[in-house]
C-alpha cells in the first residue's frame, strides 16, 4: 500500500513517488478536507433537525476524495457515485447544489457541464459504464482529457462495474477508475463482498493499478497525478484502490452498531486523514495558529451559509418533472400536465395538500 504520510503525521519516502510536497499544496489539501468535513457535519445536523430527508457522510474519506480530484485537471470530466461531497466541493459545487437532492427538492442540484462533474448515481455501478463511454468519446475527439470515475467496494460486485473495466481496456478509454474501499457496503464487509482486493481484480482485467492509503491525501494526490499523466500520455486505463474507512454509518438511516464494533471505528479514528496533515503542517511550521484560526472562521462561515442556503431551497413543483421528461413534450403529456396544474390550483395554498 502506497503511503507518503504516516498516521502519526510523519513523511515517508517512496522511490516511486518522490516527495515534491510544497507547503502551499499541503495547506490547500488540508483546507479542502477541513472545510468538507465541516460541511459534512452541518449537513448531518440539518438532517437530524429534519431539514434533509437523508444524508450520507463522507467522514473519514476526505483524503481519498480531495487528493484524487485535486490531482486531475479542471477540464477532466468526473463521474461520482453518491458520497463524493468533498470532491464536489473541490469542483466549486455549492453546498445548496449538493444538498438539494438530499432535501428532496431535486434529483440533482448542479449543472454537470459547468462543473465537469456528473450527477450522483444512486444505482450502484451504473456510472462506471457512463464514464467509460464518455472516455471513449474523449479518445474519438482526440482530446487530452482524462475521465475520473468513482465507485465503492460494494459497487464493485455489480456486473456494470466489471463490464466497464473490461470495456475500458478493450476500447483504450482514457479513464481512471477510483475505488474508495471504505471496507463497508452498508452492513456488508469486504470479506463478504469479494475474494481479492479490487485492485488485484482490475489488474486481471488488464488495467494499470495502484493500491494507496486512502487516508493519506499526499499519497492519493501523487498516485492519481501519476495515473492521470500516464493515461493522458496514451497509457492503458487505470484503477486506483484507496483503502479508507467509513467512520459514520452508511447513512442517517443506518445503525452501524448492529454490525460492527466501536473498537474498529476507534482504530480508524486514529488514522484520521485530516489530523495527520494538521500534524505535518504544524511540525513543519508550514501553517501557524493564525492560519488554523482563519480556517476555523472560514469553516464556521461555510456552515452558516450551508444552513441558510439549504433552508432557502425552493420546493419543487410537479410541472418541472413533467417539463423535464422529454426534450419535446408530447401533446398527450402536455394535456396531462395542464390538467394536473389546474387540479392543483383548485386547492388553496397550504390547504390539505
Amino acid at each position, binding site marked *: 500500500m502506497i503511503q507518503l504520510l504516516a498516521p502519526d503525521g510523519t513523511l515517508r519516502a517512496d522511490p516511486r513517488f518522490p516527495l515534491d510536497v510544497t507547503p502551499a499544496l499541503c495547506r490547500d489539501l488540508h483546507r479542502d478536507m477541513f472545510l468538507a468535513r465541516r460541511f459534512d457535519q452541518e449537513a448531518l445536523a440539518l438532517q437530524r433537525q429534519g431539514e434533509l*430527508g*437523508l444524508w450520507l457522510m463522507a467522514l473519514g474519506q476526505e483524503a481519498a476524495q480531495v487528493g484524487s480530484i485535486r490531482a486531475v485537471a479542471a477540464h477532466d470530466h468526473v463521474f461520482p457515485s453518491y458520497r463524493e461531497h468533498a470532491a464536489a466541493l473541490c469542483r466549486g459545487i455549492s453546498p445548496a447544489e449538493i444538498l438539494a*437532492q*438530499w*432535501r*428532496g*427538492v*431535486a*434529483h440533482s442540484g448542479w449543472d454537470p457541464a459547468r462543473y465537469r462533474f456528473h450527477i450522483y448515481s*444512486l*444505482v*450502484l455501478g451504473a456510472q462506471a459504464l457512463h464514464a467509460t463511454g464518455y472516455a471513449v468519446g474523449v479518445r474519438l475527439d482526440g482530446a487530452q482529457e482524462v475521465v475520473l470515475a468513482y465507485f465503492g467496494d*460494494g*459497487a464493485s*460486485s*455489480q*456486473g*456494470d462495474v466489471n463490464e466497464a473495466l473490461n470495456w475500458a481496456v478493450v476500447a483504450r478509454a482514457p479513464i481512471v477508475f477510483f475505488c474508495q474501499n471504505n471496507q463497508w*457496503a*452498508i*452492513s*456488508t464487509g469486504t470479506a*463478504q*463482498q*469479494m475474494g481479492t482486493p479490487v485492485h488485484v481484480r482490475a489488474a486481471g482485467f488488464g488495467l494499470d493499478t495502484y493500491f494507496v492509503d486512502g487516508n493519506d491525501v499526499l499519497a492519493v494526490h501523487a498516485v492519481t497525478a501519476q495515473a492521470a499523466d500516464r493515461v493522458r500520455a496514451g497509457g492503458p486505463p487505470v484503477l486506483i484502490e484507496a483503502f479508507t474507512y467509513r467512520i459514520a454509518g452508511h447513512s442517517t*438511516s*443506518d445503525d452501524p452498531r*448492529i*454490525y460492527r464494533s466501536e473498537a474498529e471505528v476507534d482504530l480508524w479514528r486514529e488514522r484520521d486523514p485530516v489530523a495527520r496533515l494538521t500534524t505535518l503542517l504544524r511540525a513543519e511550521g508550514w501553517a501557524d495558529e493564525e492560519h488554523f484560526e482563519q480556517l476555523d472562521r472560514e469553516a464556521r462561515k461555510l456552515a452558516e451559509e450551508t444552513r441558510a442556503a439549504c433552508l432557502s431551497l425552493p*420546493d*419543487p*413543483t*410537479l410541472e*418541472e*418533472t*413533467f417539463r423535464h*421528461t422529454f426534450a419535446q413534450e408530447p401533446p*398527450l*403529456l402536455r394535456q*396531462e*400536465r395542464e390538467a*394536473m396544474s389546474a*387540479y*392543483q390550483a383548485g*386547492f388553496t395554498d397550504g390547504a*390539505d*395538500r
Partner: protein
Amino acid sequence: MITLGQALNRGLRAAMTRDPRVVVMGEDIGRLGGVFRVTSGLQQEFGADRVMDTPLAESGIVGTAIGLALRGYRPVCEIQFDGFVYPAFDQIVSQLAKMRARSAGRLALPVVIRIPGSGGIGAVEHHSESNEAYFVHTAGLRVVTCATPADGYTMIQQAVTGDDPVIFYEPKCRYWDKAEVDEDAPLAAAPALHAARTVRAGRDLTVLTYGSMVRPALVAAQIAHEEGRSVEVVDLRSLAPLDLPAVLSSVRRTRRAVVVHEAPTTLGLGAELSALLTEHCYLEMEAPVLRVGGYNIPYPPARAEERYLPDADRILEAVDASLAY
C-alpha cells in the same frame, strides 16, 4: 398488534421453520436484518447458511437463487428497493419466469422475490417506484402484494409454499402500520394467494386497488359514504393472475369502476383492468372505467411526491366523475 414489517418477519420465520429448504438471501438481510428489518433475527435463529448476506449484485442474487432452486432449495430473495430490481431483469424475465416452459415443464423454480415497493416515504430517487406492471406483463410470474399485517403474514408463507416464482411487493410506506394478526390460524384457512378481497362493501361504484393505495381508497370511500354515496373497495392482492371473477362480480353489481395505483397510468395495471372490464361487462357498465394513477413521468423529488401520488381527493374526483356520468 404488530406492524406489517413484523408480520412479514414472523411469516418468514414460520415458513423457514416449516420447511428446511427455505433460505433467505439478499443485501444486508443477515446481520442487519435488512434496511427495513423485515428479516431481523432470522440469521441468529437459522444461521448464516439459511439467511445469506450476498454480494452487492441483484442479477447475482436472482441468478444464484435460481441455481439454489434447481438444487431443491426454496430461496426468498430480497431486493433492497424497487428501483434496484432492474439489474436482475434478465434473470427474472428470461430465466425465472420462463424456465418451466423452456424445460417443457421439467424444471420448477419456487423462488420468491421480495420487493419493498411504491413511494410515500420521502425517499431519494429509485427508492419509490411501482414497477409491478413489468412483471404482470411477463408470462410465468405470479405478482402479489399485501396491504395489511394479516395479509403480509399469510401471503408471504403462501408465496414460499407455492411452486411458481412469485414477485412479492411490500408497500414500504405501510411497514409501520399496526394490526392484530392471528398467528395460530391455520394457513389453509386463509384466502388463496390469488384471491382478491372486498375490504369495504358498497353499491354505487367499485374502487379496484392494491398495496399502498388501499388505505386512501378506504378514506375516499368513507368520505363518499358521508356524502351519501356507497363505494365498494376491492383489494386485488394478486396482480398476476388477476382474480377476475371477484372483480367482475363486484363491478357487475356496482356497474361503475375506478382503478387506483401509484404506477404511471400508461400500461399500468389500470389499463388491463379497464380492457378486461370492457371485454367482459361492456353492456353492464354505466360509465367508463376511470384510472387514477401516478402521472406519466419519472417519480418526482420527495418534496413533490405528495402531489404525484394518488390520494383520497384524486380518487374522489374520479368517483364523482364516474357517478356523474
